[in-house]
C-alpha cells in the first residue's frame, strides 16, 4: 500500500516558506520533522511507532495521535462527511469535529475516534475515514464540485416524492446516498474480545474536570473531609494548565498541578479518575462516566477491562468542565493548517510539536497575542496577528516586539491553499480596500470561549446568555450542583483557581463537611485583557465555503438558506441544516450558527434560542453501556428443578419470559433423530392413549391467606367462588377494569382461609401485582395476605387414561374418583414426598397436577418415569401440550391477547351476574356487546390436509383485493393427531354464528391460501367424557 502521506506534497509549502536557519528547534527529532527540540510533556526516551493509513510513522510516549501526526508533518487526516473536503486537526481536545479516525483492527476496530484524544501507543494502527478509494484521491470529493447543487435540505427537497405516488425518487437514490454517507464503518470482525466493567459509587462531592478550577474544588472539598470523586477525560491532570506556561504561587503550573495531585492522593476519601469522561447528568444527581482503562494500551492487561462505566450518585456536584474555543467563520476556514489558537498552544507547549512553520493568528480575543508569543517562543515565525478590533490593547506590544506584524481593524477573508493545506491567507481591512495575501502554513483562530455547559444543561436548566462574555453560561441550578471556573465564564486562571476553591468548599459544606470557607487562592500574575470583540463570521468576498459546523459540512450560506426558507428557530435550524447534529454535538459550531441566524433575523443571540444538550457528552461505546450483561448474562435465566433432566433427554428449549421450557424430547426413529413434528405427535398420541408427564412448574403460583380470601376471589375473578368448598378447585377467569381478559388459571381452596391459585407463565408477575394493588390501594379493608410461591413448588402434570393407575402406584392415598373427583384436591405423599394433588386437566384427558417442594421435584419426576415404564410413559413438551389444548379449544396466550372478553372466548356463561367484580362494569360498554365482535371459533381446512398457521387473515373470499376486508385471524394452529388433519383456533367476526361456513385463511406474506370450514373451537371430546375416562 502506498503511503498517502507525502511530506513534500502535503507540507511542501510550509517547509519552503521558512528559512531553515530560522527554526533550528523544529527539525531536530529524527523522522519527526515538526517535533520541537525542547519542552513538552512527552517522553523523549520512549519513542513509539505507529501506522496511519498503512504508513509507518514515529511518535513519543505522551503524544496524542493528532500530535504525533502533526509531528510527522501529516496535516491531511480525513475528509469531510458531505463534500469530502480535505480536513486536518482543528482542536486538541474532545471537541474535535474533523480528525475522526478508525483505530485498531479486526474485532477491536473502533470508528469515529477523535485523533486529538486518542493516546499514542506502540503499534497503534489508525485509518482515515470518508475516503474512497484513498485519502489522497477521493471520488467523493466530486460532491464538492456539485456543492452548489447540494444546499441544506437537499435530500428532503429533491428526493422525497409527493405523497400518494408510492415511490418517490428517494426510493431509487437512497442506496447510493446511504453508501456515500454515514460516519466511519463498523468493525468487520466480532465479537469484541474485551471485557467491560460497571461500578456504582456514592460520593459527597463529585468534581467533573481536573483543570485549575476542578483541582482547586477537589482540594477544598477533600480538605473539608468530604468523600470526593474527581474525574477528568484526559490522561493527565491540569486541564488548561497543560496548554500554557503559567506561574502559580511563584512556580511553574505543572509543579502546582503535581503538588495538588499528590495532596489529593494522600486523602483517603478522595478518588481521582483520569481518562474518565462524565458523559451524562440525570435526575437526582445521578451521573454516568466512562473510564477508559485500557484504550491507551494495545490491548487490556490480563484480567482488566477495556473500559469501565461508573454510575455515580453524588450529594453535590461541581462542574469544572472548562471552555471550548470557537473557530471563526471565513471562506475556506476548513483547510488543514487552520486550527484553534488554543490547540496550537497545546501542540507547542504540551506535545512539543510545531503545527506549522509560519503562522498567522486571527481573532478578536487577546488570546491571539498569547498564542503569537507561545509560537514565537517555540521558534515558529508569526507572520502577522490579524485583530478585527480597531484599537489593539497592551497585549499587542509583546507580539510587535517579537517581530510580528499587527494588523488592527483587519480580518482574514479567505484561506488559500490546496488539498495539502493552507498556503496563505487573504487579509482585508474592515473599512474596505484591496485584500492582501500573507503566506503561511498555519492559521490560528482565537474566536473567544464557549463554556462547556453540556452537563449543567443535561441536569435541567437552559443556559443563559452572558453579553459581556458573548457566550452561554449555566442557568440557575435545578439539582445540587454548581459550576466553577471557565465552565461558568471565569476564563482567567486566577479566577478559575479562586472559583474552584470556593465551589469545592461550598459543595462540601452543603454535603455536611466543613464551614464553607474557601482556602486562600494561590497567586497568579496575569495581564488584563483588552475587551473581547466577537467576530462571528467574515463576509465572503466571493468564492470559498464558510464552514460553521465542520463535521456536518454546514456553512454560513446554509444557515442563511434555512432563514430564508423559514427554518428560523434553533431547533428547526438544527434539523434543516444538521448543524450540531454530528458526533461532536456541534461543540465548536453551535454558538457561531446561532449568532449568524440572530444577525440575519436582527435579533439578539438568545432571541434565537439555545439548543438542548443531551447525553452523552462524547460518544460512548456500546461495550461500556452493556458491561458484563452480554450473552448468557443479558438476562437472568429461570430453570425449573427438572431442567437438567429435560436437557439430558434431548429436549430443545424455548424461552417463556425468563424461563426455559422443554419443547419436545427427541428420540431416534429409523436410525435418525425425529423431526419436531414426529416427536410432538408421538408425545400427544401417548397422552391420549396411555400416560405422559409434563413439567408445568413455570405456571405462576400464589397463596392467599386470611379470613376474607373468598371475598377477594369474588372481586377479582368474573366467576363466583362463594360455593368453593375446601378440597375443591375451580377454573378462574380474571378481567381488567375495562372488561377484557387479564389471565386465567385454577383456584384451589386448601383450607377455610387458604387459597392456592395458578396463573399463566407469562402473566405471573402481572397477576401478583394486580392482587397486591387491589389489596393495598383499593380494598385495604380485606384481610388477605398474598405470597408468590412459584419457585417453591415443582408442578408435574400427569395426563392420560392411565394417569390414575400410574399415580396410584406412588401415592399413599386413594386417588380414585370417590376421594379425588374431577376438580378435587388432596394432600398425599407421592414417592415419599409430601404433595398436593390437583385433579385438573389442560389436555382434556383424565389428569392430575402433582405439586411437590422444588427440591424434591426431580426425585418425583424420575419416580413417575420409572413407575410408568410398563405403560410406555413419555415426557411431553410444550408442543404436544399446545397441540392437545388446541384440540380442546382452551384459550391460551395467543387468545388472551388483551383484546378479548369472556364472551369472545366462549366463556360468557361463566360471568357471574350476582356480584360486583373487577371488569363487570367494563363489560357493559357497548363495543364489547357488539355481535360482530371477533370471537373464538375452530377452523378446519376444507380439504382436510392443507396446513394452517397462526396469524393468517380470515377473509370471505380470497380473490378480493387488496384491500380485502378481514373477518379475523387465526391465533393458534396444530396438526391434530386425533383427527389426523390440521386444525386452528381463530377469532372471527360473528363467531359461532358462522359455524359451517366456508371462509379463507390467507397469508399474503407467505402466499398461503387455504379454504377453511368454521367449527366449534373444541375438536376432541366436546362432552368432556375423557376427563373421567
Amino acid at each position, binding site marked *: 500500500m502506498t503511503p498517502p502521506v507525502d511530506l513534500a506534497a502535503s507540507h511542501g509549502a510550509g517547509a519552503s516558506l521558512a528559512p531553515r536557519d530560522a527554526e533550528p528547534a523544529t527539525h531536530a527529532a529524527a523522522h519527526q520533522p515538526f517535533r520541537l527540540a525542547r519542552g513538552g510533556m512527552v517522553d523523549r526516551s520512549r519513542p513509539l511507532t505507529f501506522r496511519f493509513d498503512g504508513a509507518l510513522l514515529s511518535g513519543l510516549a505522551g503524544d496524542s495521535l493528532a500530535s504525533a501526526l502533526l509531528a510527522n508533518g501529516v496535516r491531511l487526516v480525513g475528509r469531510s462527511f458531505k463534500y469530502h473536503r480535505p480536513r486536518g486537526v482543528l482542536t486538541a481536545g474532545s471537541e474535535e469535529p474533523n480528525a475522526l479516525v478508525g483505530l485498531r483492527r479486526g474485532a477491536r476496530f473502533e470508528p469515529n475516534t477523535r485523533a486529538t484524544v486518542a493516546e499514542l501507543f506502540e503499534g497503534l494502527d489508525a485509518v482515515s475515514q470518508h475516503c474512497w478509494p484513498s485519502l489522497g484521491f477521493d471520488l467523493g470529493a466530486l460532491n464538492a464540485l456539485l456543492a452548489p447543487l447540494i444546499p441544506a435540505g437537499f435530500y428532503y427537497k429533491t428526493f422525497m416524492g409527493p405523497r400518494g405516488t408510492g415511490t418517490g425518487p428517494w426510493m431509487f437514490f437512497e442506496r447510493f446516498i446511504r453508501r456515500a454517507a454515514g460516519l466511519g464503518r463498523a468493525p468487520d470482525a466480532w465479537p469484541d474480545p474485551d471485557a467491560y466493567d460497571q461500578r456504582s459509587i456514592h460520593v459527597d462531592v463529585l468534581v467533573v474536570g481536573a483543570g485549575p478550577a476542578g483541582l482547586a474544588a477537589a482540594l477544598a472539598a477533600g480538605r473539608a473531609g468530604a468523600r470526593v470523586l474527581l474525574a477528568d477525560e484526559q490522561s493527565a491532570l491540569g486541564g488548561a494548565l497543560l496548554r500554557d506556561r503559567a506561574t502559580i504561587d511563584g512556580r511553574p503550573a505543572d509543579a502546582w498541578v503535581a503538588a495538588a495531585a499528590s495532596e489529593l492522593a494522600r486523602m483517603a476519601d478522595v478518588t481521582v479518575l483520569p481518562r474518565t469522561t462524565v458523559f451524562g447528568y440525570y*435526575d*437526582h444527581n445521578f451521573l454516568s462516566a466512562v473510564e477508559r482503562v485500557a484504550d491507551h494500551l494495545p490491548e487490556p492487561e490480563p484480567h482488566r477491562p477495556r473500559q469501565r462505566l461508573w454510575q455515580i450518585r453524588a450529594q453535590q456536584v461541581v462542574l469544572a468542565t472548562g471552555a471550548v474555543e470557537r473557530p471563526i467563520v471565513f471562506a475556506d476556514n476548513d483547510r488543514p493548517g487552520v486550527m484553534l489558537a488554543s490547540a496550537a498552544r497545546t501542540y507547542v507547549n504540551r506535545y512539543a510539536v510545531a503545527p506549522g512553520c509560519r503562522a498567522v493568528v486571527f481573532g478578536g480575543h487577546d488570546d491571539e497575542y498569547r498564542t503569537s508569543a507561545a509560537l514565537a517562543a517555540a521558534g515558529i515565525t508569526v507572520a502577522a496577528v490579524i485583530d478585527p478590533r480597531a484599537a489593539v490593547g497592551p497585549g499587542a506590544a509583546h507580539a510587535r516586539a517579537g517581530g510580528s506584524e499587527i494588523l488592527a481593524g483587519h480580518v482574514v477573508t479567505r484561506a488559500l491553499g490546496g488539498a495539502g493545506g493552507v498556503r496563505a491567507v487573504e487579509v482585508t481591512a474592515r473599512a474596505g480596500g484591496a485584500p492582501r495575501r500573507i503566506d503561511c502554513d498555519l492559521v490560528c483562530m482565537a474566536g473567544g470561549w464557549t463554556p462547556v455547559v453540556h452537563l449543567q444543561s443535561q441536569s*435541567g436548566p437552559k443556559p443563559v446568555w452572558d453579553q459581556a462574555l458573548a457566550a452561554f453560561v449555566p442557568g440557575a441550578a435545578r439539582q445540587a450542583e454548581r459550576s466553577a471556573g471557565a465552565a461558568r465564564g471565569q476564563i482567567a486562571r486566577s479566577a478559575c483557581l479562586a472559583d474552584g476553591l470556593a465551589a469545592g468548599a461550598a459543595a462540601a459544606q452543603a454535603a455536611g463537611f466543613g464551614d464553607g470557607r474557601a482556602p486562600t487562592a494561590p497567586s497568579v500574575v496575569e495581564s488584563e485583557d483588552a475587551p473581547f470583540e466577537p467576530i462571528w463570521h467574515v463576509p465572503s468576498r466571493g468564492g470559498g465555503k464558510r464552514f460553521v459546523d465542520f463535521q456536518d459540512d454546514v456553512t454560513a450560506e446554509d444557515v442563511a438558506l434555512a432563514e430564508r426558507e423559514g427554518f428560523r428557530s434553533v431547533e428547526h435550524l438544527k434539523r434543516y441544516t444538521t448543524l450540531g447534529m454530528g458526533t461532536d454535538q456541534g461543540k465548536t459550531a453551535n454558538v457561531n450558527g446561532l449568532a449568524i441566524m440572530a444577525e440575519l433575523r436582527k435579533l439578539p443571540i438568545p432571541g434565537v434560542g439555545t439548543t438542548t444538550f443531551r447525553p452523552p457528552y462524547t460518544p460512548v461505546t456500546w461495550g461500556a453501556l452493556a458491561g458484563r450483561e452480554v450473552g448468557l448474562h443479558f438476562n437472568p435465566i429461570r430453570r425449573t428443578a427438572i431442567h437438567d433432566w429435560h436437557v439430558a433427554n434431548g429436549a430443545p428449549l424455548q424461552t417463556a419470559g425468563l424461563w426455559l421450557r422443554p419443547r419436545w424430547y427427541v428420540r431416534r426413529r429409523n436410525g435418525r433423530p425425529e423431526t419436531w413434528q414426529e416427536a410432538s405427535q408421538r408425545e400427544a398420541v401417548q397422552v391420549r392413549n396411555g400416560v405422559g408427564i409434563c413439567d408445568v412448574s413455570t405456571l405462576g403460583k400464589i397463596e392467599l391467606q386470611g379470613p376474607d380470601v373468598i371475598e377477594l376471589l369474588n372481586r377479582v375473578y368474573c366467576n363466583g367462588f362463594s360455593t368453593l368448598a375446601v378440597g375443591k378447585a375451580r377454573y378462574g377467569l380474571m378481567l381488567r377494569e375495562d372488561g377484557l381478559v387479564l389471565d386465567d388459571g385454577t383456584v384451589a381452596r386448601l383450607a377455610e382461609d387458604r387459597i392456592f391459585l395458578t396463573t399463566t407463565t407469562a402473566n405471573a408477575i402481572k397477576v401478583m401485582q394486580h392482587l397486591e394493588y387491589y389489596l393495598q390501594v383499593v380494598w*385495604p379493608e380485606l384481610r388477605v395476605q398474598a405470597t408468590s410461591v412459584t419457585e417453591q413448588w415443582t408442578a408435574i402434570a400427569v395426563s392420560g387414561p392411565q394417569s390414575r393407575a400410574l399415580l396410584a402406584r406412588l401415592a399413599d392415598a386413594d386417588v380414585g374418583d370417590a376421594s379425588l373427583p374431577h376438580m378435587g384436591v388432596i394432600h398425599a405423599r407421592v414417592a415419599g414426598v409430601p404433595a398436593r394433588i390437583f385433579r385438573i386437566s389442560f389436555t382434556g384427558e383424565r389428569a392430575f397436577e402433582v405439586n411437590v417442594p422444588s427440591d424434591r421435584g426431580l426425585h418425583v419426576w424420575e419416580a413417575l418415569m420409572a413407575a410408568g415404564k410398563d405403560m410406555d410413559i413419555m415426557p411431553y413438551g410444550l408442543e404436544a401440550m399446545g397441540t392437545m389444548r388446541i384440540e380442546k379449544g382452551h384459550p391460551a396466550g395467543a387468545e388472551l391477547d388483551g383484546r378479548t372478553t369472556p364472551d369472545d372466548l366462549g366463556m360468557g356463561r361463566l360471568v357471574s351476574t350476582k356480584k360486583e367484580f373487577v371488569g363487570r*362494569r*367494563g363489560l357493559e360498554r357497548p363495543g364489547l356487546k357488539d355481535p360482530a365482535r371477533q370471537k373464538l371459533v375452530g377452523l378446519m381446512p376444507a380439504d382436510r390436509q392443507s396446513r394452517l398457521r397462526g396469524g393468517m387473515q380470515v377473509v370471505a373470499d380470497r380473490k378480493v383485493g387488496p384491500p380485502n376486508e378481514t373477518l379475523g385471524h387465526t391465533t393458534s394452529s396444530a396438526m391434530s393427531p386425533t383427527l389426523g388433519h390440521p386444525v386452528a383456533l381463530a377469532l372471527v367476526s360473528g363467531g359461532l354464528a358462522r359455524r359451517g361456513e366456508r371462509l379463507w385463511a390467507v397469508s399474503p406474506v407467505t402466499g398461503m391460501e387455504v379454504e377453511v370450514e368454521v367449527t366449534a373451537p373444541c375438536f376432541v371430546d366436546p362432552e368432556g367424557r375423557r376427563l373421567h375416562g
Partner: protein
Amino acid sequence: MLLIACPWCGPRDQTEYTFVGDGTVRRPADSLGAGETEWLDWVFIRDNPRGPHKEIWQHASGCRRFLLVTRDTLTMRIERVESAVGAAVPGGRAQGAAA
C-alpha cells in the same frame, strides 16, 4: 435516575420500583351504580399535569409496598413519599400504614 425514599426500606434507585399509575384516581365504591363520568374517570381519564403530581409506585424489588409519591413532573423533584394504602378508596385515603 430517580432516588425514591421508601418509608420502609430507605432511599433506593428507581430500578427497584415499578411505576403503577396516577395516584389521584378513586375506584367508585359501587362500580355498577356509579355515574358514567365517575366510572370513566377511574378507568380511562388521566391528567398529565406540569408540576407536582401524585403517582403510585410499587417497591417491587423491595418490600412490595405501594407508595404514593408526589413528584414534580417538571423538575423531577420528589416532594413526598407515603404509604398508598387505601389511596384509591373514594372519599379520600383510608387509614394509611405507618412507616
